[in-house]
């Protein structure tokens, strides 16, 4: 079965991104497909490569990046939500005249259409938010 997953809250502040990670991992390990994970609202902040969590805490971004690499996951950050919140890839940064970018390996930035498409093309849509 194909699961689409929405993550609506930022890392650490809300448990949403942890719960989504645990759900996706369990789905993949049990023979299901997760064609896409869509990060919306503050969820876009999960994709920053600049976070440095305390050493005795989990590294949420690295967990997602590793899971994406292992299972060839499509981790999509909503461009509109990302622009408000200061999450950029190299392309966007240069297009917008910003002097830095902060997106992590394994994530890509794209439009809201990817969320709707995910809803159309998957069998179940899961939302993890606040």
């Amino acid at each position, binding site marked *: *079965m194909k*699961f689409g997953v929405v993550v*609506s809250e930022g890392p650490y502040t809300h*448990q*949403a991104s942890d*719960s989504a990670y*645990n*759900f996706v*991992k*369990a*789905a993949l*390990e*049990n023979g*299901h497909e997760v064609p896409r994970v869509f990060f919306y609202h503050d969820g876009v902040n999960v994709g920053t490569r600049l976070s440095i969590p305390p050493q005795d805490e989990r590294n949420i971004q690295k967990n997602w990046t590793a899971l994406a690499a292992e299972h060839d996951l499509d981790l999509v950050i909503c461009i509109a939500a990302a622009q408000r919140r200061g999450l950029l890839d190299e392309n966007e940064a240069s297009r917008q005249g910003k002097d830095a970018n902060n997106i992590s390996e394994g994530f890509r930035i794209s439009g809201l259409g990817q969320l709707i498409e995910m809803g159309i093309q998957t*069998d*179940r*849509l*899961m*939302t*993890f*938010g*606040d």
Partner: protein
Amino acid sequence: MSTLHTVNKSPFATGSLQSCLSHAKDGDAILMFEDGVYGATKGTTLADAVAAKGGSVTLYVLQGDADARGIAAARLIEGVTPVDYVGFVRLAADHDRTHAWL
């Protein structure tokens, strides 16, 4: 055609669980996870309402979230079934849609 409802908020902090309870239909399932697990505990001001709904919908709680919050199995409302993440995935697959009550 049934729905898996998910509730991740404490019922003492927000109205999400109550709204979910009043919209879930017979044969649906409700999974309480994250802070939602508090809704599955005995002896609270809301326990009777939750237990009563258990007659027409199936109630689940995410074990890991209950453990994190120090909720022992004995404190769960009668009829609430603990599941792990694999069980969560199975519930989502077994119902026709999922409705997250944020």
